[in-house]
């Protein structure tokens, strides 16, 4: 191919139009449709039927209800505690890794960068891995699940807080400093109030994530309703399963509703979208809510039996006979490749299918409700359990694992897309409708075209999350590093375990860097 000057390059003129951009990831459906028939074995359609039927006939056994409610309590408590600890630690970490803060306080910025890089390590390890590792380190105690959520989440919050801080305009800060204010006071006054809306908005989102993480940790035996979900699924007690599931769904929707309400009431910006919110004007309410949360958290910690002192007692580790040549001989290349393929497939599916489905159901008033219900289930239902369910009709392997991950993330992405579309205002869409456009085209050009770049940018971030999450679908077999991880855990192969964690961390750090670049390009264009 003859090299062309950038301006004449054919691709630069043939960039897909903005509205089309949002549908590009959905192209992955074509190859998927081609290979899916080979993956279906269809042996267990009867079981799928029973599972679906049980949704409308959940068990009302009081013994089960009592144990499900107890499990739910544990899950919610773990989520709340993990979230609160992560928020507190994350705020401190965020301030400590902010360039602006270091420049103002000490006149140099390199410690901020160093700390930021250091915080990348806890962040790169999925909460499930933290949970399983901590289980080996400090034993089976309620604090393990809380800590497993708090550690990676704190690092995430710290990153976001420092990004937010460094993006704030510095003029007020400089003005205060010039007027002679001391550095800490100037920072607090100039940046504190401006930072809050972003932090609260993100904090609300993290709380929703924490509930999902707590459920997932339960699936792997760390207590709570997740454990019940897995046990009932594995013993095929679908009626009992749905009792637990409906309870969890109710709590999740309640929590999401509450977060949405508070976000609107306190005037926080949405997570992504075009309308930036105004700064909250109900500071007193906010402060009181925060204060009221403290005793609630302490009571929860007591009820759960969290004992911080017990965390310090590191117990005997399994005997360690490292066999590094054997570890090196593992098929790393193939495992990493299948992990990456799994990530891409799941991410493209989740990102692409959400707008496609919204377009498909656009003409029908109930279609949207149906989708919202489906997405809520997707968010709620941990991916390893989707994978187990899919195994009834699909062969184990990469496709099955990807579908399970995609379904979960579709639930998250779909809701965000819908929220952003609603917040974008319907002027353009209404105008198109009046001009005689069909409902699908009006939605497509009227709403989606403005959102497509920020949606895809969010999708790039989500791909990064999915890469971390691939570890949870190891149950399905043949799904890259996750499968080996579960095997290494049950063999107490510490050397393999260490190598796997290191590879996972390296992969997610690389993935994070890549998705950052993609996102910046998308948002810059």
């Amino acid at each position: 191919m003859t090299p062309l000057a950038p301006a004449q390059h054919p691709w630069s003129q043939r960039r897909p139009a903005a509205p089309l951009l949002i549908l590009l990831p959905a192209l992955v459906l074509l190859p998927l449709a081609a290979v899916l028939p080979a993956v279906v074995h269809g042996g267990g359609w009867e079981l799928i039927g029973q599972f679906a039927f049980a949704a409308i006939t959940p068990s009302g056994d009081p013994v089960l209800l009592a144990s499900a409610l107890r499990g739910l309590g544990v899950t919610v408590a773990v989520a709340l505690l993990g979230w609160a600890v992560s928020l507190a630690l994350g705020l401190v970490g965020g301030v400590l890794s902010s360039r602006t803060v270091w420049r103002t306080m000490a006149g140099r910025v390199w410690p901020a960068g160093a700390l930021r890089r250091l915080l990348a390590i806890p962040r790169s390890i999925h909460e499930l891995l933290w949970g399983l590792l901590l289980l080996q380190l400090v034993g089976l105690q309620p604090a393990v699940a809380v800590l497993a959520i708090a550690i990676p989440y704190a690092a995430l919050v710290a990153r976001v807080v420092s990004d937010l801080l460094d993006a704030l305009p510095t003029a007020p800060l400089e003005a205060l400093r010039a007027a002679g204010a001391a550095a800490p006071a100037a920072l607090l006054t100039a940046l504190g109030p401006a930072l809050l809306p972003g932090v609260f908005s993100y904090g609300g989102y993290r709380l929703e994530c924490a509930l999902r993480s707590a459920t997932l940790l339960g699936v792997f035996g760390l207590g709570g309703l997740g454990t019940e979900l897995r046990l009932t699924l594995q013993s095929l007690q679908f009626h009992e399963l749905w009792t637990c599931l409906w309870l969890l769904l109710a709590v999740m929707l309640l929590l999401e509703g509450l977060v949405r309400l508070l976000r609107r009431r306190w005037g926080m910006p949405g997570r992504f979208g075009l309308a930036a919110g105004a700064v909250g004007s109900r500071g007193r309410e906010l402060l009181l809510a925060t204060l009221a949360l403290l005793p609630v958290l302490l009571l929860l910690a007591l009820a759960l039996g969290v004992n911080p002192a017990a965390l310090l007692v590191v117990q005997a580790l399994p005997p360690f006979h490292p066999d590094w040549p054997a570890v090196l001989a593992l098929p790393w290349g193939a495992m990493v490749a299948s992990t990456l393929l799994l990530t891409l497939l799941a991410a493209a599916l989740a990102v692409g299918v959400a707008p496609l489905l919204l377009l498909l159901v656009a003409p029908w008033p109930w279609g949207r409700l149906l989708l919202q219900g489906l997405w809520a289930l997707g968010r709620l239902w941990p991916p390893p359990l989707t994978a187990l369910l899919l195994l009834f009709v699909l062969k184990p392997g990469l496709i099955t694992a990807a579908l399970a991950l995609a379904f979960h993330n579709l639930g998250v992405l779909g809701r965000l897309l819908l929220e952003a579309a609603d917040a974008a205002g319907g002027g353009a869409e209404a105008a198109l409708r009046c001009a005689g456009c069909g409902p699908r085209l009006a939605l497509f050009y009227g709403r989606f075209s403005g959102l497509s770049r920020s949606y895809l940018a969010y999708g790039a971030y989500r791909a990064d999350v999915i890469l971390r999450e691939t570890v949870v679908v190891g149950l399905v077999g043949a799904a890259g590093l996750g499968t080996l991880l579960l095997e290494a855990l049950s063999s107490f192969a510490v050397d393999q375990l260490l190598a796997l964690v290191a590879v996972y961390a390296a992969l997610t750090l690389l993935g994070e860097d890549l998705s950052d670049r993609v996102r910046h390009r998308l948002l810059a264009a």
Partner: protein
Amino acid sequence: MAWPALSVSWPASEIPPFFLMSSPFRRPVLRLRERSTAVLAGLAMLLLPAVLPPVTPAAAPLLPGAQAQQKLLRISAIPDQKPETLNRLYPLLANELSRSLGVPVKYVPVTDYTAAVSAFRRGDLDLVWFGALTGVQARLQKPGARVIAQRDIDASFQSFFIANTASGIKPIANQKGLSVLKGKRFTFGSESSTSGRLMPQYFLGQAGVRLSDFAGGAPGFSSSHDATIALVQSGAYQAGVVNEEVWQSNLSSGKTDPKKVIVIWRTPGYANYHWLAQPNLDQRFGKGFTARLQSTFVNLRASNPQQAQILDLFGAKRFIPATPRLYDPIEKVGREIGKIR
């Protein structure tokens, strides 16, 4: 990562009055409402310790370190059966042990094989009903642990290979015949199960079947024997392997449909489940405690209605003393397959 929010910036004019009020650059002209909020908040913080019940270490159900629970015998079991069965079985057993040994006994449910082994290593559990493989793993991680007893049926335990009738797999005459399973959808039980994974994998290997020979390039892990039967019967997997005991009980309870799922081969016998106790029970509960523990199990009799119920739930006629040597072959197989290192 980073949070993909659009760049967040707020004009200074939008800074809320509340925060300006509390800033150090204005005179603190707190209006009445702000002041009352501040007082209320301060009071709330002050009263906080009062509303909290005192923190007691007993609040933690599973404290690491045996010294924390000197006089409580904590028993548990690997979760290889339906949880509802275990939850019925163990309170009964805890009562019986407590009565016979004169110490409080508590059943601690554990949801994962690996977690059971780890908890035993750390001394969080005193007496655990392990499978052969998990028992050996636990003993290697906790030197000095005492093998107490096994059931009469554990001396020569068998696994059954089963198949869905629609799969076309027929019963096979000898071990070499296991090669018919190549290319089939096949599931084990749990990764760490002796009868649902370890020994079957060993016998499969002797017949030349590797794990990558199954459809999809890997076997499934159903996690329990009951699930294996249900999945093979449904056709989700064409074949699988279960322990003889669970197969018999599913067959006699009518849960298994012999028209849909059949046994194709029975493995040779091997030693399986056993009770494993911490090495320090005599120091904690008094001299001879471990011996009394063993005789309590061995002396469970079907003639006593209470004990009959326990034996029945365990699927045993009686318990017999067991020694570590019985499990040497399991350890050897475990090392060959890589489950013991």
